[in-house]
């Protein structure tokens, strides 16, 4: 998925973008524009923090994937471990994000942000255990 996915929040009070119904590329262009603005305006720093890390994980994942495709996949287990750690960490963090996001409070009734973080920590530790075990 593209970086923008992480750069999107679920808040409803978004100022409607000034996109008139025209040729879709242009529409897409300023739709993205408005998206970014909306994001920058009304995302709490904590969510931004998370998003920063999501971007980080994605980039390092992509880099490893490129290396695997372009150069070598020889210790395949090592690749899977490295790449898997990025992907796994990414989804865990994404999960955390959607859990602490106040907008989703009604979906996660019985999961407080703290509980979410505890889950996140546990998940990551387990993940990393397997990663290092598989790194070879």
């Amino acid at each position: 998925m593209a970086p923008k996915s992480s750069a999107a929040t679920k808040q409803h009070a978004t100022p409607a973008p000034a996109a008139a119904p025209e040729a879709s590329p242009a529409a897409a262009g300023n739709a993205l524009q408005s998206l970014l603005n909306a994001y920058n305006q009304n995302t709490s720093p904590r969510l931004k923090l998370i998003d920063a890390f999501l971007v980080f994980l994605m980039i390092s994942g992509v880099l490893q994937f490129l290396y695997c495709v372009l150069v070598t996949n020889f210790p395949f287990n090592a690749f899977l471990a490295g790449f898997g750690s990025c992907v796994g960490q990414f989804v865990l963090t994404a999960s955390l994000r959607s859990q602490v996001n106040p907008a989703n409070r009604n979906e996660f009734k019985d999961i407080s942000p703290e509980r979410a973080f505890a889950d996140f920590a546990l998940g990551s530790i387990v993940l990393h255990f397997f990663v290092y075990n598989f790194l070879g």
Partner: protein
Amino acid sequence: MLLRRAAALLALVLTACARSSTGDSVLVVLDPSLDKDAYSTFWAGLTDKGYNLTFRTAKEAQPEIIQDEVAQFSHVVVFAPESKNLAQDLTPQALVSLLDKGTNLLLALSPSKQTTINTLASEFSLVLPPPGTPLISHFPARDAPATVVPVSPPAAHPVLSSGLPPVWFSGVPFAYTPNPLLIPILSAPAESFAADTSSDSGADAVFESADRAGEGLWAGSSLSLVAGFQATTGARVTFVGGVETFSDEFAQKELPQGKSSGNKQFAEDVAGWTFQETNALRIDKVEHHRVNETEPREMYTTNDNVVFTLHVSKFNPIKDTWEPYSGIKDMQLEFTMLDPHIRTSLPPIPGKAGEYSVAFRVPDRHGVFKFVVNHKRKGWTHLESTTVVPVVPPRHDEYPRFLSAAWPYYIGAMSTSAAFVLFVALWLSGDDREGRKKGLKTE
């Protein structure tokens, strides 16, 4: 001439104290009709070497050859061309079972009768002509009967000593079906043939015998007169077409061109080979270990470099001892699982007597492998050795680690966990007043 006589004499003196590598007791089974003293030279030769001979006639059952499954003699000589069948304990089956027990046999075929030995011969892939067809040769012209033939032994033969003068022979020739265990020692002269007629009037009979029973003519050097046979147990058998070959008469009888015959030496050579004096080898020890190690491994890992060493010695009849023997140049080692994965020559190590050694790299394929040495040469003891070693894949911790190719992956994993730590720190230390977000939201 003189010199050679002297040499022969000397050899005789030296071999006086010689012995077999498998034992000294010999049982000699003779025809009642056969005059024992007519073979005194042969017997003397044996006793001089240190054998103790026990004589018994073909009919009497004492002393027994096998007592409760144990062979009583290490060698058995059967010179009974006249008696159709032998005593109870000398059935063909019994004789074969003797070979199984490692006893060596020296057997004389009968030119005239279908004796036990003649029937037994077919088990050793010998093919005999019909009874009563002795070997006849009109070549060379000589003042001996046509059935008494001077045969010149092969120039170089593993069993016979070299430079042997022609040998007087009188008896039955035989053909043989191909069998690597069989070693023809003396083959008939090219001009000789087997026939049951004794005058030129028999010419037509000879001609007809050719297409009788489609056997063709029993003639030429493809026939054999004396043949050795080495069973897979290592026991040796020798079939002799005619007993007289060992007789004193033939030993003294002069050759047409007036030289003394080679019968005496020939008899000694044949007996020596049959009784495991000569060409007797054995494997003393087998060693295998990794290169730069000394102890053998329970199991080897794929791609190991392994050294295999074989110790061979040869029996020295003169000293009556086994001596390290490096004389084999074409020994081969196989590393086998189902089929040989590696076959390489196993050369003798110069300087180390009797040691044959080779180092090689174990195939990159796991399984239960065998070091196989299977050195079989005609006239020599077969050297067979099999050592089983499992070849296993590397242990989980024997694979190479920290490969350069994987650096990016290692780094990636590490930076992820580093990032995780940083994130945890920031997250926990940051403050989230819901107020903030609410505030933002409401605006």
